[in-house]
């Protein structure tokens, strides 16, 4: 049994410290995914932490059936949480990343990386939450449409539609910007 699946099995049996194996193995990829979806590392870490807590609850309640790998399952949880958070963001006034948050992040991530995340956030801000998440999973994380469909709990056709619409919206935005 692969290491993460073994750790998940142990957590389900009550071995809580085994959860650390999962956290250490998956955090880098999940936080990067969250940062690309939400535009900054601070929000990404909050998102991924919430994802871990939900995963833990599911393991303790024997709700993880093992049909997908632990890593895919965690990606699914984080992607769905990101959709919820992006929708909630649209309903709230925009929040500027505080200086304190940027100071905390400087040691882990360079200024160029943080600027790139900000540029990505601005680029994607016009997209619906599901389109944004699907496009990042496809164009930046390299997942196939079938994998994205599994993560976002929809059909492959829906994924293709979201990607087509996302690209069309971004093209239109570029054209409008070019003409203004």
């Amino acid at each position, binding site marked *: 049994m692969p290491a993460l699946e073994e750790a998940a099995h142990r957590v389900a049996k009550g071995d*809580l410290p085994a*959860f*650390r194996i999962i*956290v*250490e193995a998956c*955090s*880098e990829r999940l*936080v*990067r995914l969250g*940062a*690309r979806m939400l535009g900054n*590392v601070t929000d*990404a*870490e909050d998102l*991924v*932490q919430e994802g*871990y*807590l939900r995963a*833990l*609850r599911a393991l*303790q309640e024997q709700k993880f059936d093992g049909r997908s790998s632990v890593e895919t399952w965690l990606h699914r949880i984080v992607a769905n949480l990101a959709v919820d958070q992006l929708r909630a963001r649209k309903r709230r006034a925009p929040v500027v990343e505080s200086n304190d948050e940027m100071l*905390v*992040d400087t*040691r*882990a*991530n*360079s200024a*160029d*990386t943080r600027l*790139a*995340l900000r*540029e*990505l956030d601005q*680029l994607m801000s016009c997209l619906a939450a599901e389109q944004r998440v699907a*496009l990042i999973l496809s*164009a*930046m994380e390299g997942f196939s449409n079938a994998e994205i469909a599994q993560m976002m709990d929809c059909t492959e056709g829906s994924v293709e539609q979201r990607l087509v619409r996302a*690209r069309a919206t*971004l*093209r239109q935005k*570029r*054209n409008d910007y070019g003409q203004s």
Partner: protein
Amino acid sequence: MANPNDILSEQLARLSVETADVRPTANFTVRVMAAVELQSAVREDWSVQVLKWSKLGVAVASLAAAAGVALAWHSYDSVDQEEALAYGVMEAFE
């Protein structure tokens, strides 16, 4: 004129490279494990509470059932006694 799709793909590819180095902050694992332990502790406490209250509920229900049976028996007994008294009176007059 450049194909807008190509420009967009190039921008996404560039941003993909520029954000490839994103890392969690140094204490992220520690922070997550602290939250995990807290959630587990709250969950255990909650399970204990549910068990305690459900046992209490079963005890109260049992008492109520026993009280109901006792009351019904007492009522039956009373009727029986009244009937016996009535028959006794009737026999006395015969």
